[in-house]
């Protein structure tokens, strides 16, 4: 499966997302924000980083990039799209996902190995998990606080669009401990923690078994690949 990873000016975890796709058995395709071309990929990742320095609002300027026209079109037609951290912020700015992000409640950048509960295991990017499964994924962000008005929160909670919730610690003050959200159709998923950094033994979060051995993030990428095979 060819999975596109879009690089924006200021993207940082783009090569890591490509590596994760490769480790999951997919074929990563590097895409450039300035082109109006998805090069025939079957799924898209908006990677983490500080596109445009997080200036104005995180993800805001990138969401106006040329390629985002194609991304929005493809997403609306059902192509799987994963937004990680800065990519999640872009999805919200592009209104592919409800809500918005503000600065962390404690006002600082934070990096930690974050425990999450899988709330929706039916999206294109989460179907390899089971509902209620607890996973550990690195988190690192400054503007990670997910917020929305009451009505929106009620709606996405009611429709099962909350894909992941923080457990243990709410690291940024997100409403309802929300860590990840999908669109109604379940093909577009955004989350604040970084699954691509939990895909390779030796470079992931610590687990009770051994240091740096966590690979819970791999399931995001295998989920989308396996579902494509079934289709």
């Amino acid at each position: 499966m060819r999975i596109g990873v879009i690089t924006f000016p200021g993207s940082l975890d783009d090569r890591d997302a490509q590596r994760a796709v490769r480790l999951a058995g997919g074929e990563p395709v590097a895409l450039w924000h300035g082109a109006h071309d998805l090069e025939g990929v079957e799924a898209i990742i908006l990677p983490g980083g500080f596109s445009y320095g997080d200036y104005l609002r995180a993800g805001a300027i990138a969401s106006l990039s040329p390629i985002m026209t194609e991304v929005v079109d493809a997403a609306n037609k059902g192509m799987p799209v994963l937004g990680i951290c800065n990519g999640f912020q872009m999805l919200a700015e592009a209104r592919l996902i409800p809500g918005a992000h503000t600065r962390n409640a404690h006002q600082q950048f934070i990096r930690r190995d974050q425990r999450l509960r899988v709330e929706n295991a039916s999206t294109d990017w989460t179907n390899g998990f089971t509902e209620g499964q607890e996973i550990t994924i690195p988190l690192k962000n400054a503007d990670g606080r997910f917020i929305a008005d009451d009505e929106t929160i009620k709606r996405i909670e009611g429709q099962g669009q909350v894909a992941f919730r923080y457990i243990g610690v709410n690291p940024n003050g997100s409403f309802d401990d929300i860590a990840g959200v999908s669109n109604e159709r379940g093909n577009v998923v955004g989350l604040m923690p970084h699954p691509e950094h939990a895909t390779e033994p030796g470079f992931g979060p610590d687990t009770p078994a051994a240091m740096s051995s966590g690979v819970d993030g791999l399931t995001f990428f295998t989920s989308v690949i396996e579902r494509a095979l079934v289709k």
Partner: protein
Amino acid sequence: MPTIVVEVMPKAELLDPQGKAVTFALARMGKSFASEVRIGKRFEVTVDEVTDEVLAEVKTLADDMFSNSVIEDVVSISVLDSVGA
């Protein structure tokens, strides 16, 4: 050159963590005259000239780009005296 000022504030019903942090700090400092501080943004847009068309463009920018209507309101758009600042 003339400047158009756009002011954006976090929506009143949403918590503004930065403002809250400042409000708390003021309370700690004993500055009880201030009951709340909210923090928004001020954009100064330098334009060649101020026409109705330019003002309309800036209004669109203010709504679509300078602010995110999910969390923010545009509270004012005004033209700065070329003298002022």
